[in-house]
């Protein structure tokens, strides 16, 4: 039995509003082991913590129960308080009377009653707590960045800058990501390539960074400090270290009608290709689905023309296994498919395009060398209609689109509209919007310039239907301010498609055991206070894999993720979690049940000598847990038929005591 102190927090009115905190601290006063009980406005404040420290000293407390917010919020805070007061940090238990009581119940009587019961359960548990000391584990001083867009690039550069080796895994043949496809960037209108490509070169030239392009992560094992990762480097049928990127093979390749992914299918590439001029690594890749040599052995021209001898038709996928101390996810986004939005006739007319296609269409390195023309007939468009919120802000049950705001569309649409009017003053440009959202430095000023200086016609309302007829797109829309239905004959329609996380993110999250929200964005450890960390230790988040972001936000988050990684990698040892399994050698019968369910291989068996009651000795096979490897899930405790396995911090008798306290 401990000498327990109970500390009930009001959390201002957050708890005290629905729970009678005075009654709770009174009621808990008489629980077994309790020698001190008090309540205070903000237990987590300096004064609140002082109150705990003083009570520990004055009342010689050995256990602390704090009835407050979720342990996910302040357990660490109160453990530090305990240490400061001279106690073992694991002698603290939290009763969650905010998130799981005062915030979800409206009735004060019921709320108070429940808070008391939760307090009793925590007291029952803390009475059985024992001081725990965490073990230590080494840190592999190397980081993995998954995704080679601007988020991954920035994170890798920042980590490498601190002196740690970094590997970047990119599934495309080149790094660069979405930003490499953009023309200009808002609100400064600097050219995306001009600011991105030097960074790509920096990555290539940094001797701390290795790029695995055309590669995928296929397996992740281990835990913070020591992740064992398997990377599949797909065969590109070109020797990366030999290829000079001269492009002779590309010119001579006879298969030249393959839709070019980099230009979103608006022009063609060859079966052997380099995605774009500034690609990193600048090496050719053979598309095995298009290459005649790989399909039926007939051709081989690229091999003949390659002066460097880089072509290797027999190349196989390569499997790389490497250990990393930290992993950064930077898997990025894609625009959603427009398939379910055919009221906008995307599938029926080539002149209805998405905003990303518009980027390529106006990019000097794009399929039209930057000439804004209609994809259908190459004519110059005079009337352009931009439609915002296509698939964003849809109700979840609307069965198409996404519930969230995609955040970047308002600004890039303003950019597109402005640039069009700037370059082609003979055009009429309409933007149909639901709301124009411009919270950002110089963002609203930018949008207003589009309207006031460039004469872009912003219309409050949505487009309802687009009918391609003849060489026109008949746009039917509403103007809610004028209370009119508008009928426009447009030449080009641009849809601001919602963005969604890349489809590779979901299987990756499973491998990393990192959690995702219902939209497949990665979840942060705390939405406000730990925005670049995933709840899984050692896994960090960079860029749009965490939520819609523009480039400046992505770059800031990438830097933040890098600093978290650096903070981890500078440590030589990591303090582990002492809540690991322990085997009672006296009752263990060596049956291996626990070993079979352990996902980490943390359990091994020792042959140990025991002295028997009759003073003879006997060698018995008993389980032994490696505390550095055990992650503390507790699967073994249930699998053990003799009850020899238990889990520190969540002992059988502790949980049973909680059950008893609740069921009275």
């Amino acid at each position: 039995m401990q000498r327990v102190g109970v500390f009930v927090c009001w959390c201002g009115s957050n708890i005290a509003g629905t729970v009678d905190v005075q009654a709770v601290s009174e009621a808990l006063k008489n629980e077994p082991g309790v020698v001190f009980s008090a309540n205070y406005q903000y237990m987590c404040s300096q004064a609140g913590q002082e109150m705990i420290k003083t009570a520990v000293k004055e009342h010689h407390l050995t256990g602390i129960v704090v009835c407050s917010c979720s342990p996910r919020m302040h357990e660490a805070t109160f453990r530090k308080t305990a240490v400061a007061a001279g106690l073992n940090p694991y002698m603290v238990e939290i009763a969650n009377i905010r998130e799981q009581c005062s915030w979800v119940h409206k009735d004060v009587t019921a709320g108070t009653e429940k808070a008391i019961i939760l307090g009793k359960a925590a007291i029952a548990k803390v009475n059985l707590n024992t001081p725990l000391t965490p073990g230590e584990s080494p840190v592999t001083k190397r980081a993995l960045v998954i995704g080679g867009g601007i988020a991954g690039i920035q994170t890798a550069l920042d980590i490498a800058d601190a002196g740690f080796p970094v590997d970047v895994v990119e599934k495309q043949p080149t790094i660069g990501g979405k930003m490499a496809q953009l023309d200009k960037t808002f609100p400064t209108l600097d050219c995306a390539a001009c600011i991105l490509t030097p960074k790509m070169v920096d990555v290539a030239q940094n001797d701390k960074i290795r790029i695995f392009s055309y590669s995928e992560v296929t397996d992740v094992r281990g835990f913070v400090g020591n992740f064992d990762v398997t990377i599949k480097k797909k065969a590109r049928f070109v020797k990366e270290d030999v290829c000079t990127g001269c492009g002779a093979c590309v010119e001579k390749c006879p298969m030249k009608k393959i839709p070019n992914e980099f230009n979103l299918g608006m022009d063609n590439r060859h079966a052997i290709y380099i995605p774009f001029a500034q690609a990193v690594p600048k090496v050719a890749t053979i598309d095995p689905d298009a290459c005649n040599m790989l399909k039926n052995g007939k051709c081989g021209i690229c091999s003949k023309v390659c002066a460097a001898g880089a072509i290797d038709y027999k190349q196989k996928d390569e499997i790389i296994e490497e250990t990393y101390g930290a992993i950064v996810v930077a898997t990025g986004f894609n625009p959603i498919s427009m398939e379910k939005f055919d009221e906008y006739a995307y599938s029926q007319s080539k002149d209805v395009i998405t905003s990303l296609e518009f980027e390529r269409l106006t990019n000097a390195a794009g399929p039209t060398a930057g000439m804004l023309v209609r994809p259908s007939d190459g004519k110059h468009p005079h009337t352009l209609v931009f439609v915002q919120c296509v698939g964003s802000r849809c109700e979840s049950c609307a069965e198409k689109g996404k519930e969230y705001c995609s955040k970047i569309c308002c600004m890039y649409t303003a950019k597109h509209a402005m640039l069009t009017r700037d370059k082609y003053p003979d055009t009429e440009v309409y933007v149909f919007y639901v709301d124009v959202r411009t919270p950002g430095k110089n963002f609203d000023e930018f949008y207003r310039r589009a309207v006031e200086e460039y004469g872009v016609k912003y219309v409050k309302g949505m487009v309802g239907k687009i009918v391609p007829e003849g060489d026109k797109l008949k746009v039917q829309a509403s103007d809610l301010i004028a209370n009119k239905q508008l009928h426009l004959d447009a030449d080009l329609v641009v849809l601001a498609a919602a963005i969604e996380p890349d489809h590779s993110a979901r299987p990756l999250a499973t491998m990393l055991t990192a959690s995702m929200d219902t939209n497949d964005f990665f979840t942060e450890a705390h939405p406000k206070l730990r925005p670049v960390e995933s709840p899984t230790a050692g896994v960090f988040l960079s860029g749009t894999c965490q939520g819609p972001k523009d480039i400046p936000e992505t770059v800031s988050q990438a830097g933040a993720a890098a600093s978290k990684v650096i903070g981890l990698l500078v440590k030589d040892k990591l303090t582990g979690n002492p809540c690991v399994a322990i085997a009672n050698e006296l009752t263990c019968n060596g049956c291996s049940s626990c070993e079979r369910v352990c996902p980490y291989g943390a359990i091994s068996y020792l042959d140990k000598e025991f002295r028997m009651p009759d003073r003879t000795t006997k060698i018995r096979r008993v389980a032994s847990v490696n505390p550095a490897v055990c992650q503390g899930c507790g699967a073994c405790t249930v699998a053990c038929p003799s009850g020899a396995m238990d889990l520190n911090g969540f002992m059988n008798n502790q949980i049973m005591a909680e059950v008893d306290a609740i069921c009275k």
Partner: protein
Amino acid sequence: MQVTEYKPLIVAFCCNWCSYAGADLAGNNRLAYPADVKIIRVPCSCRVNPTFILRAFQRGADGVIICGCHPGDCHYTSGNYYTRRRMATLFSMLDFLGIERERTRVEWVSAAEGAKFAATMNEFAQKVAALGENKRLEDLRCKK
């Protein structure tokens, strides 16, 4: 005559990584559910020993629910699969002993599913309340 409304006693075991966080999110979003539900935090749903559940019923719990990460999303990669199999066996045994199926449940609630957590608890509490008090396994020897 004054009629006091019957209040069931429900024990919810929540895994630390998904469901406990989901319950916290329900709180952050102020999504109400009955105060009859009392949550016990466990590292993983696979930490829940069948004896905890038996003990709860013996001591008069009217319903027990175990919440874990969605299949494939377990923080410990495979813990929830053990839970699923163990509980399927346990619940059918409990059913045989007279603890109705509606009194026991395994539910997957992710850290992002605050709304699902509240909805699940509301629905479960309603079902348990409809069954009335659990007398079947209430064993006085377990009570002080």
